[in-house]
């Protein structure tokens, strides 16, 4: 069977996009863009290599582009960015948040690594390729993601910031 079947990758792409963006609509747009990008870039895909990793790479690049664009046009959402990146654990909180929301509170680069490795079962090496970062960075981001998510789930320390919880989709990365 030499047929390369794109459709078999759809569930996995959608799952990753949803967990990454935290928004079903944005996720399907991202998958759609990825498929369209694949249309114009097929000649760059080496037959026989991992199709899934290639598609995830396309998607990741599109996602980064979107975030950059969002940063230019929506620089007013940086309060959420500050929350995600610089928030120091406050004493107490209002109990653990649900996992989905905690996941969205991770910085996007950490979330991406965690999802690729833990949910999509990607090897650390493949994740490094998809995200175009060194293996060591994959490991350190994975470590931070796991520790941070554990803190969030245990303590719900960000519960004191209900306003930030309203707009998780526009969070900036850096």
């Amino acid at each position, binding site marked *: 069977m*030499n047929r390369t079947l794109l459709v078999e990758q*759809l569930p996995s792409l959608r799952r990753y996009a949803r967990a990454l963006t935290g928004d079903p609509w944005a996720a399907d747009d991202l998958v759609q863009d990825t498929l369209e990008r694949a*249309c*114009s870039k097929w000649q760059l895909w080496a037959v026989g290599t991992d199709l899934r990793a290639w598609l995830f790479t396309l998607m990741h690049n599109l996602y980064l582009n979107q975030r950059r664009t969002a940063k230019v046009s929506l620089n007013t959402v940086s309060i959420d960015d500050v929350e995600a990146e610089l928030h120091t654990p406050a004493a107490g909180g209002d109990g653990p948040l649900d996992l989905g929301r905690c996941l969205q509170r991770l910085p996007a680069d950490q979330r991406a690594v965690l999802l690729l490795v*833990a949910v999509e079962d990607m090897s650390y090496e493949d994740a490094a390729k998809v995200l175009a970062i060194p293996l060591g960075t994959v490991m350190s981001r994975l470590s931070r993601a796991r520790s941070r998510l*554990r803190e969030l789930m245990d303590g719900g320390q960000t519960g004191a910031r209900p306003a930030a919880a309203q707009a998780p989709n526009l969070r900036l990365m850096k």
Partner: protein
Amino acid sequence: MDTRPDEATTIPEDDLHALVDGRLAPDAAAALRRRLAADPQAEATVTAWQAQREALRDLCAGMSDLAIPATLMAACERAQRTHERTSQWWRWGGMAAGLLVAFGVGWLASTQWHGGQDGAAMARVEPARQFAQQAAVAYAVFQPEVRHPVEVTAAQQDHLVQWLSKRLDRPLKVPVLKAQGYELVGGRLLPGDDGARAQFMYQDSAGQRITLYLGAVKSSAGGDVRETAFRFLDDGPVPAFYWVDQGFGYAISGKLTREALQELARVVYGQL
């Protein structure tokens, strides 16, 4: 990986990740677990990460289970076709297979239909074949669905037939395949090259699914493809028998032998 049974040294964190993610060889994993027994803090970390990993997978499992929107399916098919056009190897291989099928299954053409005249017949191969490929892709997408295999279930068969007949602009009939062991699960509407397509799904007592995919097929020039012989497609995700009759294409797809599919195709053709 550092898995020496030396309890005095701290276990590298990368090893803990590798253990949680199942990236260690069985003996290395066992050795690490023995070391963890003497390191409660590291053990607690591993336990927490494992629970987190499972929770994340549960959370995300529901996400891939949702019905795929038609726009995404269409984009997927477009990308698939672009790929097949750009991939010369596949293209020539596919054409060769198409020719083989055209000659190989030709007996039906000669006994039941006059299969078309030379050049005209060749020009028709592509749209019908593309139709069959789309049928196979639709099969691959919806066949594994647990929660949403169809849009309208067999319980509302009248509504299903009415609805799809309206959308495909032609009175449809749902073939009965009980004698062959298949019950109707239901059907759905899908986008195709030449407008709406319908997919009926059937299932046998073992849960094995087959689909009947149908819709208008236009020739490359834009006119209706009048009719073709029964053809067999076996380089898609599933094998399929397909044919075109009075400008309307039919494809039976399923993980069955060629003979079983052919028999189903003849039953369906007989009922339509």
